[in-house]
């Protein structure tokens, strides 16, 4: 398992994505899957950076597990901020016209749609969000 602990601020997004991409270089990850994982990581990390410790700041931990299940990658995000279950939010209505559309909730919706599994728990004073993605189709 690879682990990165970093300040939960937007400026660290590129660092987080570089960590994810370099870790996934070692496994056979199709480019399209890597693209979907990058988007999911961005949406989740930016959410943590924007809301978890607001108005203060804190740490986020990202753990990548590529060996526990062959052909599957699991990425866990931990923060010690305000308890918040992003999965509890209602999915946006994607059938509305431009004028009626709101952008809120779209990021986590994209995560739910593109990952094979998304789990949230609050445990030991931490928000723990885990995404799983099968690397083969």
């Amino acid at each position, binding site marked *: 398992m690879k682990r990165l602990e970093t300040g939960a601020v937007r400026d660290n997004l590129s660092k987080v994505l570089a960590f994810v991409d370099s870790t996934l270089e070692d496994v056979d990850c199709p480019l399209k899957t890597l693209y979907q994982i990058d988007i999911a990581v961005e949406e989740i990390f930016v959410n943590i950076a924007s809301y978890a410790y607001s108005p203060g700041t804190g740490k986020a931990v990202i753990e990548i597990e590529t060996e526990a299940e062959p052909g599957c990658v699991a990425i866990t995000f931990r923060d010690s901020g305000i308890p918040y279950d992003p999965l509890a939010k209602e999915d946006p209505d994607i059938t509305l*016209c*431009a004028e009626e559309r709101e952008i809120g909730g779209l990021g986590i919706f994209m995560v739910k749609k*593109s990952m094979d599994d998304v789990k949230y728990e609050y445990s030991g004073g931490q928000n723990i969000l885990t995404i799983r993605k099968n690397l083969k189709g």
Partner: protein
Amino acid sequence: MTINKEKNGDELTVALEGRLDTTTAPQLEEELSGLLDDVKKLVFDFAKLEYISSAGLRVLLAGQKRMNKQGTMVVRNVADEIKEIFEVTGFTEILNIE
């Protein structure tokens, strides 16, 4: 991300190169804000756009809302990966994709 703009009368073409994400979306938003006043047709060329996240979608939605009031907006040369994002999020119904 690189933003290439070309103005032709009341038509503005914006070609994006690279990643439209949390880091770069504010840059596009700022570039657009001062340029759209007399634009009737806004064209986004995504031939060299590699990546879009919800932060990028937010800017496109704002652009579409604004252009609905004063003209039209089209999105051209969308790569398959980005088209898939538009489909999943319902943006294929909101945007004019050529």
